[in-house]
């Protein structure tokens, strides 16, 4: 874990990630000018949500606080930081690769703002057993936390809580509602 983080911090320049929208340039406070890449990952290279930072080409993380996201990005609707809900597949706590840019951005933001704390709320859909779903929500929040820590956030900055199926985003009882309820919410 330590060696992983070290290897990441050595990589320069820092590349910032936004959600979608192709390339644009962002100038950060220091001298670094980075090309922003579209990191939405297509269906073809889904990696089952398994976290393996070193396998991801052309991806670096702002982990040492030298640069990265600041408070204005947090409120920018175009920033990947605006993505505050991450959805999961049925009976799974694996963070899908589609969400990696957003997760990276939040991790980088936390790394750059050590005083900031975040709560990750894990939720489940109502299918099946209520208590199993509470445990599933817990695993979802924790698997998201684990990724963010790998990406440079400090574990002390991240609290997890599971609400299981108790606080659905949608009250309906159909597949669409279920897919919206299987989620983790990032609450600053």
């Amino acid at each position: 874990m330590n060696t992983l983080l070290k290897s990441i911090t050595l990589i320069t320049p820092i590349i910032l990630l936004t959600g979608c929208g192709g390339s644009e340039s962002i100038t950060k406070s220091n001298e670094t000018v980075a090309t922003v890449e579209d990191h939405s990952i297509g269906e073809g290279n889904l990696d089952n949500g398994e976290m393996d930072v070193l396998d991801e080409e052309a991806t670096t993380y702002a982990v040492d606080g030298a640069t990265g996201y600041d408070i204005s990005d947090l409120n920018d609707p175009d920033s990947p930081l605006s993505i505050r809900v991450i959805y999961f597949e049925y009976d799974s706590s694996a963070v899908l690769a589609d969400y990696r840019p957003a997760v990276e951005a939040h991790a980088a933001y936390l790394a750059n703002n050590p005083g900031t704390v975040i709560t990750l709320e894990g939720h489940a859909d109502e299918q099946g057993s209520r208590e199993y779903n509470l445990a599933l929500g817990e695993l979802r929040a924790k698997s998201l936390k684990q990724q963010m820590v790998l990406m440079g956030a400090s574990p002390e900055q991240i609290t997890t809580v599971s609400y299981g199926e108790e606080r659905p985003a949608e009250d309906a009882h159909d597949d669409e509602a279920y897919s919206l309820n299987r989620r983790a919410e990032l609450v600053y």
Partner: protein
Amino acid sequence: MKKIAQALLTIAGLNLAGLHLASPVFAEEVMTIEITEGVENATPIAIVPFESPEAGLPVNISQVVTDDLESSGYFKTMPVTDMPSQPNDFKSIMFDDWKRMGMDNLVVGKASETASGYAIEFRLADVYKGSQLTGLRVMSKASSLRFAAHQISDVIYEKLTGEQGVFATRITYITVKKEGKKKRYHLEMADADGSNPVVLFSTSHPIMSPVWAPNGHQLAYVSFEEGNSAIYVQNISTGKRQMVASGRGINSSPAWSPDSSKLAMTLSKDGNPEIYIKNIRTNQFTRITNNRAIDTEAAFSPDGRNLVFTSNRGGSPQIYQTPVSGGSAQRLTFNMGKYNAGASYSPDGKMLTFVHQSNGAYQIAVLDLDYQQLTVLTDARQDESPSFAPNGNMIIYSTNRGHRSELAAVSVDGKIHKRLTIRGSEVRDPDWGPFVR
């Protein structure tokens, strides 16, 4: 009169069957029970309206007994309007009249005032033999009359079926009421027929998983009132609450040991959801599982030696059993689909009930542990939280109907199906309490 005296059942001084509530808050809506499927050869029985004191009775005893027996699904009660006469004691029964109508069993009785309440005398008669099967006098305070009626129903039920009745038992469950955009959660307790509902705890935060201590005096449940899940034990009579687990991560899925001294529970304080046993008297925790997967929903075997629990250590949620004293867990659900969760033992320990998924539907199933025979008992899409009645005959569970959660019950043989509805509320997470001692 001698026969009555030798089996004197006294429940005088009983308030809610020994449960003296500090300040009971009665729930607004009463549950209604509807039999959706019954047995074909239901036993015919006539419960003749009991003779009442002139001032009347606060509870219509014979009506409660009629409703109890009818709602069991095992009896077909005779409408009062069809009765050839309305005797109140054994010697007034004209057996030939009832025989001619094909009536097998007859209950007659009377209630009279006493210094402290009421005395209810009743007799169950075998019409064909023209003899008395049982006769009892029940003493009851006015406030306990409904419960006394349930006890009379239990006596009749046991005499005619050979199995202990569960009319004089209680259930606990959670109701959710929408108040505008917000929700209000109630922990409630009611008689097994849904009557006498009492709110034991109310909060704007989710509560779940109430379970009755085998001693009948306490409930354990999970509440999110502090933000995170925490386990509480509440004394039913005094209303006093005690937080028993509130560590980091989840604190949930409480399950009582048979002697009511320990709680099995799911905690993730040490990483991921694992099962622990907490001794409530010594506050000592014992860790039972240690595994990277989800381990949750523990339940004690009736002899207290084993726990069943849900784990997805094999890739999907399945039921496992492990000795409380330590040892390896053994999977119990093989070749039974991809989803089996939330198991608990039948009172005799020979069966499990749990949620079983097939074709995308979550249904209530029983597994015969000796014969490895799985039987799916329900046919809705979202059935969960099954709990055995203390006589092992029925299973209460929650089901989604018309986009709302309500309670239902099914007999273990799958023949009898009942629906329990409370108007205006979501009802879920039922747990059937023990026999009242």
